């Protein structure tokens, strides 16, 4: 299970979802991450209470994707977020 780090926040602007780190020096555009719809869906559910299985299950219900593909997408995204310090295991 993962929780979002307090050092990064997500916001929806003009139809796109972005992650913004709060610890950079200045408004560093290179540090802003655009998320696609699936990534934004996962990000909004990483809250320290919802398990990976539950998120994968929600993904399969909301998108036309197989459970295997949803799990792969979830793991790949969470790994990337972990590398960025955007999530912490709880």
């Amino acid at each position, binding site marked *: 299970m993962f929780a979002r780090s307090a050092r990064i926040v997500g*916001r*929806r602007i*003009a*139809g796109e979802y972005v992650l*913004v780190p*709060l610890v*950079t020096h200045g*408004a560093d*555009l290179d540090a*802003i991450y655009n998320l696609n719809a699936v990534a934004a869906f996962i990000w909004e559910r990483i809250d320290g209470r919802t398990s990976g299985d539950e998120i994968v299950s929600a993904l399969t219900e909301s998108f036309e994707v197989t459970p295997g593909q949803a799990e792969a997408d979830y793991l790949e995204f969470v790994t990337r977020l972990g590398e960025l310090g955007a999530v912490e295991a709880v």
Partner: protein
Amino acid sequence: MDVRDALRDFVKTGAAPRPAGAAEAQALLVAAREQGVAGLWHEAVAGDPHADLVEPLATIHRAWLARGLQQLALLERTRELLRGAGVRSLPLSGGAVAERLYATAGQRPMSDVDLLALDDWTAAVRQLRSAGYEEEERADHAWSFRAPGGPWRVELHRHLTSCGRLFPIDAEALWARRSGEGPSSEDLLVHLALHAAFQHGLVLSLVQWCDLRRLLERETIDVARLRAVARELHAERALGAALHAAERVVGAPVPEPLRAAFVQPLPAALGELGPLERVAPASPRLARVRWHVARGRRLLLLRATLTEGPLREDGSQERRRALGRVWSLARARRRASPPAVPGCLADEALDDCLAGFDRLRLTVTGGCMSPSLEPGDTVVLEPVRKTAPRFGDVVLLRHPAGLRLHRLVWRPPFLRWRTKADRSPFCDPPLRRQDLLATVVGSAPGRVRVRSGWAALKSLTAALAVRIHLKDAA
């Protein structure tokens, strides 16, 4: 195309500007940045394949979002720090509205974050210092700090605006009324209005005007509570002036009860300018706006303006010996715009000073009264109501060319009021009684006696001799 007007029209009506060419597009982008509306513009045109400038607007919007979120995070960190020192605080200005009235912080850029400290000022300052905040500037109502680990500034307010005693905060009431993590809608409206009117002379960027509009559109204002808050802060006029301007500039929907209560009683002077004269970088008529906003409390305004300096460590204010600033202001005004303007602000200010103080201290700036008074000398003045001028006194008078310190050389009942500069060969034009403002009762360094009938006789004789000489020459 006037780019500011095009952007104002966008904020007012929602119609995105349509640049005619590359140069106009560039000018609009620059103006949209300056006016803080690039994020709003991007939000309005994103997804429209025929819209102009979507990509550059998106870039600005993303950068503002990043900056805004970092600033809001700093605001929260700072509030947490202050809480640790037992100091309650509330956000002001951009920090109070960015994510409350706008979809994201990217639509409401801020130069810094403002926090109002409601409790012990000394403890608040000490706490920020100990956390690595570096003090950068002290004003009479706030201190500016650079936060550690980033480029952002926090402005810690002790008062809502300059001359803070004019708008006294009831910290307990303000805190009790708060809504979530910010001030109540009514408090927020009054704070925004005071900031617009008193701090910026009713000249703001478009996005700042938009704050007032959005607050009226998105939150329910309780008129009775608003009246009470405005009365508590002595901000009725500031509120009326800001509502009126926001309506004219960005089409803020001012409800009828608010118009009747606050806008209709306004004097014409607070509503006379056109919309673009209210949009930065127009020059604010700050002194005039403050003067009108502070009606009924102008003496306090004068005292605060002239004698109060930056906030000290203990939350009190440095005292300035600066009554001479009125004199400088009046002289500068006269020099800048001859002939004299009846009832100009400097005159009004001086009149109020003379009405409110029994003794003023001014600095001499010219040499026309040398050697009695030299430039840099200080004179002590008493209003004529307190010390009636006698023959030979140096008086402060309204001269056709401005305020002057000249010697009284003729006076009623047998002659009219006439004055003369000691070094001038001519007398001033005849004066009315009301043009005599104050009598000089002392001077420093006091090299000669200022109140001198002998000096007047000598000066007058010189003038008569010149007059006779001129007649002979003719």
